[in-house]
C-alpha cells in the first residue's frame, strides 16, 4: 500500500463533515464544552438538510442562548424572558406556511415561561420547541433552576437543593407530554456522538411534524453546564450521565402519528 499524504485526503471529494453554513462564523459565546453549541448545530443542520432556511423563523430566549440569533443563520426574534412560545404562536398563526421554532433554556421555559409553554403546547401550536435543560441558570452565574436536582448545589442553593425548603425540580417535559396538543415529546442529549445522532433524528422528526399540522413537537436536550456545575467539560458530561439521566431519563416520551 502506497503512503497517502494529508493533502491527498483533504480534498473536497473526500469531505465527510463540515460546519453547516446555517451556523454563522461568529464565535459561539458559550463556555468551552457547553452543550448549547452542539444543540445549535443539530438544529441548524436539520434546517439545512431539509432546505427550509428561507421559510424558517426562530425565537431566541433570555438566558445563555439569548444571543442564539448571532449564531443561527435564519431570521430570528429575541423574546422577553419565557415568552418565546407566545411569539412563536403568533408567527406561526400569521404565517402558517413557515417553519417556526423556539430555543429555550430551563429557567426561561420551565420557570418564568411556564404558562406560555404549557398553553402553547396545550393549544397544539404547530411549532417546534427546543428545550435545553442543564439544571441551572448559567447566564446569571449559576443560580438554582426549576430543574436543579435535589441536593444539587448552585449559587442560590449553596448547601444543595433542599426540596423541603426550595421545592421540587419540575419535570416539565413529562407534564407537557400529558397535554393533548403535543404530537411528539422527547428527551435527548448531545454529549456523545451516538447521543448527538439520536438528538438530530429527533429534531428532524420535530421539524417534519410541522408539515403535518397536528400539534406541537417538543425536544428536550439534557445538557451540561460545566461552568455552573464547576467541573471540566468531560467531568460535567460524566456527572450528567450519573446524576441527570436517572432523574431525566432519555428517550421518546410521546410519539403520536
Amino acid at each position, binding site marked *: *500500500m*502506497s503512503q*497517502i499524504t*494529508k493533502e*491527498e*485526503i*483533504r*480534498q473536497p471529494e*473526500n*469531505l*465527510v*463533515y*463540515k*460546519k*453547516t453554513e446555517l*451556523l454563522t462564523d461568529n*464565535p*459561539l459565546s*458559550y*463556555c*468551552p*464544552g*457547553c*452543550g*448549547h*453549541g*452542539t444543540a445549535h*448545530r443539530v438544529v441548524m443542520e436539520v434546517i439545512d438538510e431539509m432546505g427550509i432556511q428561507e421559510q424558517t423563523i426562530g425565537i431566541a430566549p433570555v438566558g445563555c442562548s439569548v444571543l442564539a440569533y448571532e449564531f443561527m443563520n435564519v431570521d430570528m426574534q429575541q423574546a422577553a424572558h419565557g415568552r418565546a412560545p407566545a411569539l412563536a404562536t403568533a408567527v406561526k398563526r400569521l404565517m402558517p406556511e413557515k417553519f417556526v421554532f423556539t430555543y429555550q433554556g430551563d429557567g426561561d421555559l420551565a420557570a418564568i415561561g411556564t404558562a406560555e409553554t404549557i398553553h402553547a403546547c396545550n393549544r397544539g401550536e404547530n411549532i417546534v420547541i427546543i428545550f435545553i435543560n442543564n439544571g441551572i441558570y448559567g447566564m446569571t452565574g449559576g443560580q438554582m433552576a426549576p430543574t436543579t436536582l435535589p441536593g444539587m448545589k448552585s449559587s442560590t442553593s449553596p448547601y444543595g437543593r433542599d426540596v423541603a425548603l426550595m421545592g421540587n425540580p419540575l419535570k416539565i417535559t413529562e407534564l407537557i407530554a400529558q397535554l393533548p396538543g403535543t404530537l411528539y415529546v422527547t428527551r435527548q442529549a*448531545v*454529549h*456523545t*456522538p451516538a447521543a*448527538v*445522532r439520536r438528538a438530530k433524528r429527533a429534531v428532524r422528526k420535530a421539524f417534519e411534524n410541522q408539515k403535518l399540522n397536528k400539534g406541537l413537537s417538543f425536544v428536550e436536550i439534557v445538557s451540561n453546564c460545566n461552568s455552573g456545575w464547576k467541573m*471540566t*467539560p*468531560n467531568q460535567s*458530561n460524566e456527572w450528567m450521565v450519573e446524576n441527570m439521566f436517572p432523574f431525566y431519563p432519555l428517550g421518546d416520551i410521546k410519539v403520536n402519528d
Partner: protein
Amino acid sequence: MAKIKGDIVIDIEKCKGCSVCIPACPQDVIALSANVNSKGYHFAETVNDACTGCANCAIVCPDAVITVYRKKVE
C-alpha cells in the same frame, strides 16, 4: 484490501480546548496542544495518523471547529 484513511482539520483559532472531542475519538487521535491560540486556549490537535474519518469528534464538537475528510485507499 481497501483501507479507509481519514484526516481532520481543526480551526484552532475557534477551538476552546474543551476536550469533548478527545474521549469521542475511537482512535485516540486528538489531544490538547501545549501551545495556545490567540484567545489563550490550548487547542485540540492530532497526535497520530490513525484517523479513520468517522467524524465522531466533529459531531460532538460544541463549536463546530472540526472538518472531516475520508478517503478509501487501495
